């Protein structure tokens, strides 16, 4: 018992420290979380559900799902490719590449939106008028297709966009801004994991005559699946919750370019607090789900590592 005494504090000190840590976590983490739900239900369930079933909320949810639906698969693909590259090979500039992957973490969300306005805005490097000129041949093709094909509706939409190719202040801008801010998440999870696992199993598979894709599907992927899942979850949580970058590129056109976080801002600024918090509960639940999955994944992968 003397051993225990030497490396821990006396009981009163321990109790005081635990209570202070609990106070800190309650003030900064738990209260804000409870606050979301308490404010959302302040004016009753009816207001709560009305806010969630409103048309503007629906279109915001839809756009949020589209933005995440494009950016998460793209960045997952990138994460796999980048992690494969920097963990399976040694080459010049490898360390620099790893630092560059982290770059978006150091960029303010506002700047992540600003860069796209500098490129695709009216005064940018590739303004809509210039894009329209470039895309004119494609637009003509799409128009012809719209006239001929049975599924003309789709081509009509494409032709319409090609004739006036808006990126910022429209859905494409929201999507690329989301891609920018969620860029490193999957790669960041995979690189340390694959580095620690080494390439021994893959090299063994090569000597047995397996092709590159086969090695990836049958050897690498089963080894990294939990880390990959966690990276995808984090990427998705950020994609659905991103505010600053999409706010800058959205132009605040309600019902057209509002994602869920932007819709919350609009409601809040219109003093519809309960409605704003009602929509916020969706994102808070997503955050809780992500944290829960994280603990779960950690426990499962921890077990499989011990086996």
């Amino acid at each position: 018992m003397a051993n225990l005494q030497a490396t821990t504090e006396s009981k009163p000190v321990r109790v005081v420290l635990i209570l202070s840590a609990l106070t800190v976590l309650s003030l900064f983490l738990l209260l804000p979380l409870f606050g979301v739900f308490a404010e959302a239900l302040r004016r009753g369930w009816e207001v709560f559900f009305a806010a969630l079933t409103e048309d503007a909320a629906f279109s915001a949810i839809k756009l949020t799902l589209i933005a995440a639906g494009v950016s998460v698969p793209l960045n997952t693909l990138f994460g796999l490719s980048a992690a494969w590259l920097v963990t399976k090979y040694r080459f010049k500039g490898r360390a620099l590449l790893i630092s560059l992957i982290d770059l978006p973490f150091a960029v303010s969300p506002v700047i992540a939106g600003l860069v796209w306005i500098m490129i695709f805005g009216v005064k940018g490097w590739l303004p809509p008028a210039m894009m329209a000129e470039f895309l004119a041949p494609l637009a003509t093709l799409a128009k012809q297709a719209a006239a001929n094909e049975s599924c003309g509706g789709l081509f009509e939409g494409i032709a319409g966009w090609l004739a006036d190719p808006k990126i910022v202040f429209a859905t494409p801008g929201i999507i690329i801004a989301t891609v920018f801010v969620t860029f490193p998440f999957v790669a960041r999870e995979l690189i340390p994991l694959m580095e620690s696992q080494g390439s021994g199993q893959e090299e063994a598979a090569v000597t047995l005559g397996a092709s590159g894709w086969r090695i990836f599907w049958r050897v690498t992927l089963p080894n990294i699946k939990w880390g990959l899942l966690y990276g995808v979850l984090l990427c998705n949580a950020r994609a659905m919750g991103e505010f600053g970058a999409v706010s800058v590129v959205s132009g605040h056109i309600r019902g057209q370019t509002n994602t869920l976080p932007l819709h919350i801002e609009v409601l809040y600024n219109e003093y519809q607090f309960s409605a704003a918090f009602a929509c916020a509960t969706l994102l808070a639940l997503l955050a809780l789900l992500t944290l829960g999955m994280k603990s779960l994944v950690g426990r499962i992968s921890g077990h499989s590592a011990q086996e």
Partner: protein
Amino acid sequence: MSKRRIIPGFGLSLGFTIAYLSLIILIPLAVLFLKAAGVGWAEWKDIFGSPRVLAATKLTFGLSAAAAGLSVVLGLLVTWVLVRYRFPGRGMLDAMVDLPFALPTAVAGITLTAIYGKTGWIGSHIAAAASWVRATWKPTGWFGDQVNSWADFGAAYSSLGIFIALTFIGLPFVVRTLQPVMEDLGLEIEEAAATLGAGRWTVFRRVVFPLLVPALITGFTLAFARAIGEYGSVIFISGNLPMKTEILPLLIVSQLEQFKYGSAAVIAASMLGVSFILLFIINLLQRRLDWQNR
């Protein structure tokens, strides 16, 4: 040299990774820097000479440093308790530490405003305390202004509100940097110190704490870097009064809204410059930490 090609796929992964990185990140950032460089020297001086930009710069960096500092103190306490003690609910609290990472910033912003604002669970107490201070001591000057604001609005619409939001954002960076280092700390050195007659406080101060310093500095820098660029969780609670509670990212947005693309690019490029230097420092510190943990 042939060793690196044992596993197939080098060309494909190299091509895709570089192309995607360039298209999404490098070229857009280069365009921003070129735009900022294209703005004349005189205009650069005008922008950074303007009182509004100066006030926002001071506010952003000052409060980010202060909040990162508080995050370090609170993070050290929280990590110590999470790593060293066993008590009911510990696992859940450990998972909750990541909440500021997972909770969208806009949601954090409105809920912090609700709680720390005048009618909020904590804000109402802040307002009451400030009213009492105002009535009792009648403070003047900068502090008097702050107390007036606290009494009228709680922590919202003042530097205090921004400070709280930035601490909320920074806390998990410190805890998650410190946690692995603290877990790997062997108890042997503490036992050795104890056998030599050191009391518990001395052991912490002279033996444990020095080993934690690199991780604490890394955590501080991470929290600081994140706080400088933070937008969503701050703008609701800050009230966005020019010269008083306007942060740099918001200033960029307001320049954009006035179609002043040049000055938005200049402010953004300067912020990016600072962030990249911080990222570089973090990389160096991280390498040292990895070496220490080996």
